[in-house]
């Protein structure tokens, strides 16, 4: 087994005539905290979907902890946990029931499931709310629960797709504290995306920048600063990707979700 836990080669995704991801290759070392940055519509989410078996690539190979993600989906699914950009909890179930169902779906032995659920829910400070329905939780609490759930089945890699989106500074700091703790104590590899560049600068061992479907830079924060001759990651990032605002094509599902959300708030 090699030192890298994620190995991506010539990954391409084409929707009709739209090339969203263009022949990208990169690898992530075991135990690394890897930041995957890029403007809206650059291909970040599409790449994460391919890495996590939700989307079939048009071309290329993905290896996760030695498993071929495209051909051995189910084996690959045991080895990662994911926190999606949008919440993916069942609101009508309690926090504990969400954990329980996850444990069952990942074939965790019952004793292990019970023990680890308690440990993880204590880690994210939700154990005293375990019997509350998730719909009564705040955005930050939901995110914490999702992290706990994503870790339940002892994954080797944790994917975090914009985990701090819409959270206040306190919650964001707390969340990164958990993540760093996990990375240190369990040696877990972390793959995350974010638009908050100071977060990436603080926590990432290595960063890849994707733009227009291609990886345009890949290295430690220091290397990126040296490459662009800048002093902080935000300047480096802007130097790399330009200042122009990106027009993202609207995903009909996303448009619908935001419509419902705004209606609920009224």
């Amino acid at each position, binding site marked *: 087994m090699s030192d890298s836990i994620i190995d991506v080669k010539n990954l391409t995704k084409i929707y009709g005539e739209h090339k969203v991801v263009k022949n990208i290759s990169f690898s992530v070392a075991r135990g690394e905290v890897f930041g995957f940055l890029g403007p809206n519509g650059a291909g970040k989410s599409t790449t994460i979907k391919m890495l996590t078996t939700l*989307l079939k690539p048009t071309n290329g190979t993905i290896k996760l902890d030695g498993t071929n993600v495209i051909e051995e989906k189910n084996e690959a*699914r*045991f080895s990662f946990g994911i926190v*999606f950009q*949008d919440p993916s*909890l069942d609101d*009508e179930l309690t926090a504990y029931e969400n954990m329980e169902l996850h444990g069952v*779906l990942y*074939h965790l032995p019952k004793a292990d499931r019970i023990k680890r659920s308690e440990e993880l829910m204590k880690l994210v400070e939700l154990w005293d709310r375990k019997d509350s329905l998730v719909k009564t939780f705040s955005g930050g609490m939901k995110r914490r629960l999702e992290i706990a759930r994503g870790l339940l089945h002892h994954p080797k890699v944790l994917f975090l797709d914009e985990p701090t989106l819409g959270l206040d500074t306190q919650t964001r700091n707390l969340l990164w504290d958990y993540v760093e703790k996990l990375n240190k104590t369990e040696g877990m590899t972390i793959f995350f995306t974010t638009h908050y560049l100071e977060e990436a600068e603080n926590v990432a061992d290595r960063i890849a920048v994707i733009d227009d479907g291609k990886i345009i830079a890949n290295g430690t924060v220091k290397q990126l600063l040296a490459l662009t001759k800048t002093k902080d990651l935000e300047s480096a990032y802007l130097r790399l990707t330009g200042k122009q605002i990106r027009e993202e094509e609207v995903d*009909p599902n996303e448009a619908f979700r935001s419509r419902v959300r705004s209606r609920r708030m009224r």
Partner: protein
Amino acid sequence: MEIYYLWLRQIKRYTRSKSRMIGAVGQPLLFLLALGYGIGSLYKRAGNGNYIEFLVPGIIIQTILFGAIFWGINIIWDKQFGFLKETLVAPVSRLRILMGSALGGSTTTLAQATMVFFLSMLLGFRPYNWLLVPLALIVAMLFTFAVTCFGAGLASRVNDFQGFQAINQFLIFPLFFLSGALFPIQGFPKALKIIASCNPVSYSVDAMRHLLINQGYFQLWKDLAVLGLMVVVMVWFGVSSFKKIET
């Protein structure tokens, strides 16, 4: 194991939503009362006998048809609000995810139909032979499962509630009204008779009528054959549509 827990999830969601429980029984009950008493006297005067007795099997099918299709909204909900992603990245086949959920949806729908059955007994309905009631229950189960899978299949293919609602209006209502659930097919004009004979729902209504009140339009073996075919086609439709979902 995972099928059981996915089933249990549906049951929990259902029992926690009191309004959904009441609403699902309310519509068929309204039909039963309004039509039963409204048309009942006309029906009797026309020399056709007891209309409530005729109506109950149809109303049971109505409860199932609308309940099971409406359950499909759960799939849209899961798709739009993320929970579906959690199940789709889990090491569980889509077939199992769908079966667990659909069995849960079938159970709750069948519970509603059973409630309607007992409520109709309060209005004086009696099955003509209690020994055939278990058979009627099996017919109801198969029909429920078929429609649940159909609802799940539709929900997999549309992305918003409005689209789902439109299908409901333009497909399910006609299927229901042209099934002989409310009025005897014998009295339909020729063209409608042909349509009713092509409507799979007619055969389940007819089977229920054979088993509960010993009346029928088609032969029972035909009803059961169509029902069997319907189960196979609907499960296939549900599974193949659910497998195509991309997030």
